């Protein structure tokens, strides 16, 4: 323990990544292309919500100031959220949701795998299970990436457009401490894109995080936090 555990900043970065993506995925509920995908996207969101809750709870316990998971999720301002911008991006069409999920999952499996035998035992215990959950997420997102990319002309066109639109946010997924994860991510993405017959955009990871929170995040949180702000202290 001590200096080797993850900082609360890093715990919140990953809790926020999972929380924001979970919120985006729930926007698909009752709107997905068919019933199976509706349930799949909701279940992906549910797993991510569970990961966020565990990380928020751990951050609150370590902070020792009595903050709960709800305090972190519902009572922080957008400028306090640390999630990478990729997960804020709008759902767009189904192809855009799948490409966003695939890029996220390819990163997430590398990050969680590195935590399993890492120096933080609390995160390690969580990671052992999250790696398995993420294995299913990746099979889902990669499976659809390939079917859409290597599908019809229209699905290929939409998948390629989504890759071009979302690729600029890839660099922002990687915190400086994540540098060792990048080769594994690149291999997964290259193999997935090759099977999907879409190309990796060249040198276009141009996104630089702004000092102000994005309007996308502000709007997402406004909806997510509205109930809690209207009824302070509400619980289920």
């Amino acid at each position, binding site marked *: 323990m001590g200096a080797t555990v993850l900082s609360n900043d890093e715990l919140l970065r990953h809790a926020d990544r999972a929380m924001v993506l979970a919120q985006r995925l729930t926007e698909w509920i009752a709107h997905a292309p068919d019933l*199976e995908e509706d349930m799949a996207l909701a*279940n992906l969101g*549910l797993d991510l919500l*569970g990961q966020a809750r565990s990380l928020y709870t751990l951050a609150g316990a370590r902070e020792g100031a009595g903050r709960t998971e709800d305090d972190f999720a519902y009572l922080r301002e957008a400028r306090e959220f640390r999630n990478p911008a990729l997960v804020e991006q709008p759902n767009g069409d189904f192809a855009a949701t799948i490409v966003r999920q695939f890029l996220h999952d390819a990163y997430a499996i590398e990050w969680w795998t590195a935590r399993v035998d890492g120096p933080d035992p609390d995160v390690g*215990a969580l990671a052992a*299970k999250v790696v398995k*959950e993420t294995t*299913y997420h990746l099979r889902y997102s990669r499976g659809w990436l390939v079917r859409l990319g290597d599908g019809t002309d229209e699905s290929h066109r939409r998948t390629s457009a989504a890759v071009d639109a979302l690729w600029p946010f890839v660099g922002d997924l990687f915190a400086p401490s994540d540098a060792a994860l990048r080769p594994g991510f690149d291999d997964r993405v290259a193999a997935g894109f090759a099977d999907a017959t879409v190309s990796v955009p060249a040198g276009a990871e141009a996104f630089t995080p702004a000092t102000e929170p994005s309007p996308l995040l502000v709007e997402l949180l406004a909806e997510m936090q509205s109930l809690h702000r209207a009824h302070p202290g509400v619980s289920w």
Partner: protein
Amino acid sequence: MSVDRVRRLVDAVPDPELPHVTIGDLGMVRSVRSSSFGIVVEITPTYTGCPATEAIVDAVRAAIGEAGYGPASVEMVLDPPWTTDDITEQGREKLRKAGIAPPPEIAGDLEAVIDLPAPCPRCHSRRTRRLGDFGATACKAPHVCQACGEPFELFKPI
């Protein structure tokens, strides 16, 4: 007070989302002990985001309280993490009877079993097809048997 008796009460609490099996069948009960503050139960959650976890904690407290052994505190332990390998043989048989294919044993290597065809819980054929990755609950995947034509769910190995 008999801790063994309380353990049996706790083991018999049904899973709210899979009422045909108990939390004992699923291997979620890590320990039951008696302390100076009352009964302490250690439970390990199944899926990280399983919405049934809180209902299970309430049900365990209620079962102990109704039998007159309360008050009880229920603690969540994450380490070592739960895996479907913890489901008992009795639990697997109950799943089969409910039309749910039990998960194959993982033994530390999920990649090795994730694409294995699930055996049909009705006719035992392995000529089955996965229809999706997520069913009505996150822990199950919808399948159809191509031998007997019946739909069924697989309890996914995790």
